[in-house]
């Protein structure tokens, strides 16, 4: 599964000066499509928090963070701040996925579809893996059932490879399971 958004750990600090020989080192975890964008995002956020810019700072490390257990399902809670047409709002969203990157990607696509918010207007404040008891949204809680059972109501028969796709078919499809 290739994800568009990767999680990076970016570490940087201001350049040492005569008055401050050992400036404080700051570390951020953020989501970006590539390393270059991650570094740029790091300076953007750091500028808002401390009096330091890319021109008088240095990047110490940037590493990609990979999912530790991509074979288990987790409930992710994502706190975000986004810009709508009328102003800034905070939001809390929950997603069920195997990896955090997958959950973040779901968040970006859902914000784009439900609220027409493009990805550069979204800032992820915090993410957490939520245990099943503390989930708030019904749409994630309905899957917390160890005896889950539902039928697949609508079966669309697809050709097994895209090469075998044809524009016209001889008969109408049978969509019943």
């Amino acid at each position: 599964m290739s994800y568009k958004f990767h999680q990076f750990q970016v570490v940087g600090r201001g350049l040492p000066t005569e008055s401050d020989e050992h400036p404080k080192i700051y570390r951020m975890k953020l989501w970006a499509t590539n390393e270059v964008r991650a570094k740029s995002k790091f300076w953007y956020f750091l500028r808002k928090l401390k009096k330091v810019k890319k021109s008088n700072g240095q990047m110490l490390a940037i590493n990609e963070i990979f999912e530790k257990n991509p074979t288990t399902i987790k409930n992710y809670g994502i706190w975000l701040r986004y810009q709508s047409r009328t102003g800034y709002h905070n939001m809390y969203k929950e997603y069920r996925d195997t990896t955090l990157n997958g959950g973040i990607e779901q968040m970006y696509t859902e914000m784009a579809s439900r609220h027409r918010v493009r990805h550069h207007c979204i800032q992820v404040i915090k993410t957490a893996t939520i245990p099943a008891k503390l989930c708030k949204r019904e749409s994630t809680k309905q899957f917390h059932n160890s005896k889950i059972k539902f039928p697949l109501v609508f079966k669309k028969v697809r050709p097994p490879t895209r090469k075998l796709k044809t524009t016209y078919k001889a008969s109408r499809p049978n969509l019943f399971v």
Partner: protein
Amino acid sequence: MPFKRYVEIGRIALVNYGKDYGKLVVIVDVIDQNRALVDAPDMVRGQMNFKRLTLTDIKIDIKRVPNKKTLIAALEAADVKNKWESSSWGRKLIVQKKRASLNDFDRFKIMLAKIKKAGVVRQELAKLKKETTA
């Protein structure tokens, strides 16, 4: 028309699209409305969209997300492989695979066998016709 095949933990499904086409996998957990966590003895446990799966009639008894050893043991206990290969759907797939992997000599042998079989059938039919007219 009530539904007979449900998505549930332990349901065996056939992959009908993508890299793992033709494999039998077990639904080990449900992620959300469109995706399931799926496992098979020869692949890493991963997620799959329901659009890529066709449910079968076979279901095994497992708990939510078993580890690989328990899963393989449960598959052996329920004898999934034999049940699948003796079911009409399973047999059809085996025949399809065999037909696709024939070489020219095999096709020649099949042609001779078909001609022989048709000859025997026609003889029997001629005998029955004679009995009804006579």
